[in-house]
């Protein structure tokens, strides 16, 4: 659906050249929710804005639905943009227009007539749950409601793609959840392809089937969200994952540990308790679960347990070998590394 080929975007600021996006090649499949993660300044927003050419790449090609956007005339580009909806962190609603007029503007831009506009706007406001707010002005709405209006505006012309530029970053956690479930619903019911950029791994975990991690204008890692969460390879990705799968143990507890500290990761539907209790029966070791959590990523479970194993050294080692055989990932923390993050 979206293909970005060798996109590079350079700026000159105060005589210095800054590379915002550095040779990025990405493709997003029809109907998926794709996440681009990175800290601010990583170039993710610039990359997203290249998809509808709000930002013209210095070099590289953008294909949307098989069409090379660079080859379009200004008029054709405007037409193409109507099938690419976009929502923003700051909502960007017209403060002098009512909710109805804000949504209607997108339809007028596409040349719809009055009757069509009225009907479609009402449909859209019902979809985002704001039927009763249509005559209010943006200043009278909460952040979540403003974002709903901007979603209605973005969907007005029945786009195939929705671009979300940090759409939930200005919202509180509860509102973020409700906006994310609205996006999920849109993705499922309308079959929309959604590209989300965010610095919150929580958002990726919640809605993205695939994602890419960006740093200094480059994509450093990409893949299915589940794989990224279970086997991150880049240090930056690891640090992002930690924001969701946080397993810091209190200092006092670490001080009392005598045995070996192990982190087990269970993928899919392996019964974690069964593996651990089998292991305890088979070997002469004592096990103590210090921390445990099962996260559902794209409705697939990812379990993480932190155990302390104590007993005879050889028995402990045998037990670890046994676990390595049964479990997708086993990490052993020796004494020296006890204080590090365990995620």
């Amino acid at each position: 659906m979206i293909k970005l080929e060798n996109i590079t975007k350079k700026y000159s600021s105060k005589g210095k050249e800054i590379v915002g996006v550095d040779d990025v090649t990405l493709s997003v499949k029809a109907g998926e929710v794709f996440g681009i993660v990175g800290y601010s300044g990583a170039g993710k927003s610039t990359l997203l804005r290249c998809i509808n050419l709000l930002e013209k790449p210095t070099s590289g090609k953008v294909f949307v639905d098989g069409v090379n956007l660079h080859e379009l005339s200004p008029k054709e580009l405007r037409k193409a943009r109507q099938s690419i909806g976009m929502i923003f962190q700051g909502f960007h609603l017209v403060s002098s227009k009512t909710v109805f007029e804000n949504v209607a503007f997108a339809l007028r831009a596409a040349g719809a007539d009055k009757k069509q506009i009225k009907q479609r706007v009402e449909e859209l406001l019902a979809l985002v749950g704001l039927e009763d707010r249509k005559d209010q002005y943006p200043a009278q709405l909460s952040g979540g409601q403003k974002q709903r209006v901007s979603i209605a505006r973005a969907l007005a012309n029945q786009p195939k793609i929705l671009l979300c530029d940090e759409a939930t970053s200005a919202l509180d956690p509860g509102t973020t959840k409700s906006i994310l479930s609205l996006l999920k619903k849109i993705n499922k019911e309308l079959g929309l392809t959604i590209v989300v950029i965010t610095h919150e791994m929580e958002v990726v975990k919640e809605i993205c089937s695939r994602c890419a991690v960006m740093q200094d204008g480059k994509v450093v890692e990409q893949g299915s969200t589940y794989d990224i969460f279970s086997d991150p390879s880049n240090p930056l990705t690891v640090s992002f994952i930690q924001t969701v799968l946080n397993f810091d143990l209190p200092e006092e507890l670490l001080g009392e540990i005598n045995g070996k500290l192990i982190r087990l990761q269970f993928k899919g539907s392996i019964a974690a308790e069964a593996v651990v209790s089998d292991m305890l029966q088979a070997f002469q070791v004592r096990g103590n679960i210090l921390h445990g959590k099962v996260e559902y990523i794209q409705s697939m479970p990812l379990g993480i347990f932190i155990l302390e194993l104590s007993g005879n050294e050889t028995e402990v080692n045998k037990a670890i070998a046994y676990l390595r055989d049964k479990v997708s990932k086993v990490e052993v923390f020796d004494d020296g590394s006890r204080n590090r993050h365990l995620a």
Partner: protein
Amino acid sequence: MMDRVIAILPELNQAFLETLLMVSIALAVAILIGLPFGILLFVTDRGLFLENVVVKRVAGLVINLIRSVPFVILLVFLLPFTQFLLNTTIGPLAASVSLSVAAIPFYARIVESSARDIDKGVIEAAIAVGASPWMIIKSIILPEVKPGLITGLTITAISLIGYSAMAGTIGGGGIGDLAIRYGYYRYDNTIMFTTVIVLIVLVQVVQYLGDLIARVVSKR
């Protein structure tokens, strides 16, 4: 003293109407020409959807040229043009020519600077839904800048009331002319004070109305 003022009332009344006429014509021209000019300056700026360095530079230069001429000199400088246009250089209509010329760049700059205060993201969102430049100007920029346009018009009107007094001195009529004739040439302080009071009241009323309307149209 009161009868001096009463005796002058018909003349004061006429002068007041003349001032009103001059200022109104100049304001109308400011809206008709200065407003589009200001919008043009804004949309051709760097990073905006009709970015055009040449147009922006030329328009900016013309405006700065006019604005750098002090109004008294502009008045005299434009006399031949007024003569050509109206076949006379006397009276409020003639004075409104130079007032209009001064009002256009003045208002254009105010329009430009209030347009700059619009959230750029709003314009970007309009581009993202595929709106044409004309639609963005008509349906986004103008409504968003409306309170600024009205505040700007108030500022322009008050400056023009001041300018109109200068125009009065070279035969334009109006309250300024009255004040100079009685107050300066005849040392008639009573009349001069009266005209000053009239001007103060006029400016206050304009400011009050301007603020009121700007507040009503603002939806922020």
